[in-house]
């Protein structure tokens, strides 16, 4: 039992170590270092030996010194295998090893005797592995987007693996792609259009949704249940199905290529979820407040503006942020309705840019950064509001 658990522990931790070092090597390769092999066999033997040695030594040496020794041994072996690498690479390896030793510290021969110990180890390492794996897989494309926008066409073609940015160069050269897209491709105008459309959608949606949500939440009227259930069913209806009729109607009414047309469609598509989210919140506001207001002879308009809105600022902001995000990111309708470059939104402009095979990719990535940054900034800054919006409105998208 003990041998089996020891071997399993060593294997799991070794695989984790191999994963860590491989990610580090990939990142180092992307800084222009020439590393041509992961040396998995060597990593495996070293990792296995370190795990075993850790168990054998146990607490005879202070864990700090033990970690330092293991890390140094590993760095020396690794450095011997791939020579001529800069010191920061080896330092990174050292830190990873130190982190690894710190993580395996809590396991000992005694711990391995316990029931389910291998499963616990597997769970622990899987969690660690998952955190690193998902961070890498998610952040890598964003990292690539950002770095590519700072490179030049030649640099990208000569070595597609060189992600290092030369900060020594002139600011003008570094931000060249951004200057180009704003000057030659009129991205300033597109940002303005996107902003107007998104902010406009937020306001119009709120103006329509707040009264409707209030009615659904509070008032009794014929067709109320029908209305509240049909809201979500309508919401499940796919945008792609609406595209052709709306296209024909909008062409005949001359609403294509206009901001008004987009505003109408975006408002209509976000209204159901806005009503749904708001009415849920309105129901949680104590009724007594309104009863007092009715005694004071306040009209429904007064009730909404003086009582409901001030009390539900959190819900309204989360709806507003959610609607803003939907409108800002929307692509299908802007593709269908806009074909005149003067009325493009940002998303449509980037797609248009990519339609030309000659467009250098760093411009495309600079445009992508420009369209992504506001959304990510808003998301990180207002995460609390947006997450509740996302959960409620997640039927969309």
């Amino acid at each position: 039992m003990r041998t089996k658990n020891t071997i399993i522990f060593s294997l799991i931790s070794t695989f984790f170590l191999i994963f860590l070092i491989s990610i580090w090597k990939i990142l180092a390769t992307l800084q222009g270092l020439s590393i041509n092999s992961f040396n998995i066999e060597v990593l495996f033997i070293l990792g296995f030996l370190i795990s075993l040695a850790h168990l054998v030594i146990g607490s005879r040496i202070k864990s700090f010194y033990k970690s330092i020794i293991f890390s140094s041994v590993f760095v020396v072996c690794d450095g011997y295998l791939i020579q001529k690498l800069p010191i920061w690479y080896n330092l990174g390896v050292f830190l990873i090893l130190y982190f690894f030793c710190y993580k395996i510290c809590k396991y000992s021969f005694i711990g391995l005797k316990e029931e389910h110990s291998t499963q616990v180890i597997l769970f622990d390492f899987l969690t660690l592995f998952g955190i690193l794996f998902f961070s890498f897989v998610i952040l890598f494309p964003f990292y690539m987007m950002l770095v590519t926008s700072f490179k030049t066409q030649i640099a990208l073609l000569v070595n597609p693996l060189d992600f290092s940015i030369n900060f020594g160069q002139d600011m003008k050269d570094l931000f060249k792609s951004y200057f180009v897209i704003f000057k030659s491709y009129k991205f300033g105008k597109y940002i303005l259009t996107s902003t107007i459309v998104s902010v406009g959608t937020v306001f119009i949606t709120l103006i329509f949704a707040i009264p409707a949500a209030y009615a659904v939440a509070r008032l009794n009227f014929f067709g109320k249940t029908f209305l509240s259930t049909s809201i979500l069913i309508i919401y499940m209806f796919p945008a792609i199905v609406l595209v052709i009729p709306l296209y024909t109607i909008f062409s005949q009414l001359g609403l294509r290529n206009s901001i008004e047309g987009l505003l109408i469609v975006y408002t209509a598509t976000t209204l159901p979820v806005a009503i749904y989210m708001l009415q849920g919140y309105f129901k949680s506001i104590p009724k007594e407040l309104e009863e007092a207001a009715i005694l004071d002879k306040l009209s429904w308009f007064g009730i909404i503006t003086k009582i409901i809105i001030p009390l539900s600022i959190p819900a309204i902001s989360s709806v507003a942020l959610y609607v803003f995000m939907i409108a800002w990111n929307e692509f299908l309708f802007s593709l269908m309705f806009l074909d005149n470059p003067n009325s493009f939104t940002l998303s449509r402009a980037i797609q248009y840019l990519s339609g030309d095979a000659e467009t250098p990719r760093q411009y495309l990535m600079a445009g992508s950064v420009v369209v992504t940054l506001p959304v990510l900034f808003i998301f990180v800054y207002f995460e609390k509001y947006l997450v509740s919006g996302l959960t409620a409105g997640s039927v969309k998208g």
Partner: protein
Amino acid sequence: MNDTLANTEKKTAYILTLPAVLLVFAIILFPIFANVWISFKEVELKDIRIPEPRAKKIVKSISDEPSKIKILYKLRNSSLLQEIRDVSFKDKFPKNFKIENLDPRCDYKNSSLKCEFGNWPAKYKENFQVIFSTNDGSNIDKKTIKSIKPKLDGNSDNILLNTNFTLKNFKKVLFENEFIDLLLTTFYYTFFGTIGSIVFGILTAQMVNQKFYGRTFMRSVLLFPYVAPVVALAYTWELLLDPNSGTLNSLLLNYQIIETPINLLGQKYIEISIFGFDFKLRLALTTVIMFEIWRYFPLAFLFILARLQAIPKELYEAADVDGASPFQKFFKITLPQITAVISILFMIRFIWNFNKFEDVFLLTGGASGTRTLPINVYQQGFAISDIGMGSAVSIVIVVLLLMFMFFYFRLLGKRVDEN
């Protein structure tokens, strides 16, 4: 008294809800019915432009006679296909103008020229000329005359409004050889995309539910793909996977894992042999599904995490006392607790993946075996510019969706309600 109160309440409710209901009806419900109408018609993209009578006004001075002026109207029917009936024409002139030659179709009164041109066939063109002189012999300013635009009116058939119906579109959609392939592609895309995003959602939610340093940061990062604009992400992936100078292929080549670059988005099939079995994997479709999973697992993550945090701790404590292993705890406690969320998620994601257009469109444009039904709507309607066919495909989508929802609620609806 009570009755009137109830009545005012009703009235208020209708006033409050009406704007929203009307807007949603006009933009969402009406198009769905309009789709049915269009799908039974033979309509092409060029037919939906309404034919217009147009006139271009050219002002010419006559040499030696400064008090006279010649005005040429280039009249035409904007449509190459349809006639315009009862074209009427109206233009205004300064008060002191006198007409020299009056066309029999026209009438000059109160310094405005009115004409009835009758019917214009498709592609109709005419040069219509009038000569004016001033009453008082004063000189004529060409600019003021040019600045007044003539008004034209006419009636034409709107091809969308007539009652000629045909079943041709549906025959074409349903009995074409490609239809089965189209359905299968859509099904693979939807099904594996949904399952994948739910599996990754469970894994990540389980992961973030543990305590570790940087947990809130991790939670934000996991939602990045879901909140960022599709356009940016799709092009980034395209660059990442590019066969010539994409990062992924370069990395794989650098580490000698592959010998020649793989065109992950442009190759329909790849031969794979596992344990001696050779089979063809639909490569481009798999890549597109990967993107789909990558972009939408955050949603599943969010849902499942919210549910996981609501599971009472006592359950796990009791399991610990009984000596349950981590896997037993996961399969016997966690999984049963989240099945309700998963079944809702499955439905939502299935419906939305089924209708997903942007992702595939931006990544491959529907090439190399990634043509799903929504992509087909676009291709029929706008690439081949056959609006009727596009509508017919949309109707097929709606019908399939309704069937799915019907069976899903039949099978699982009751269970979801109970939870």
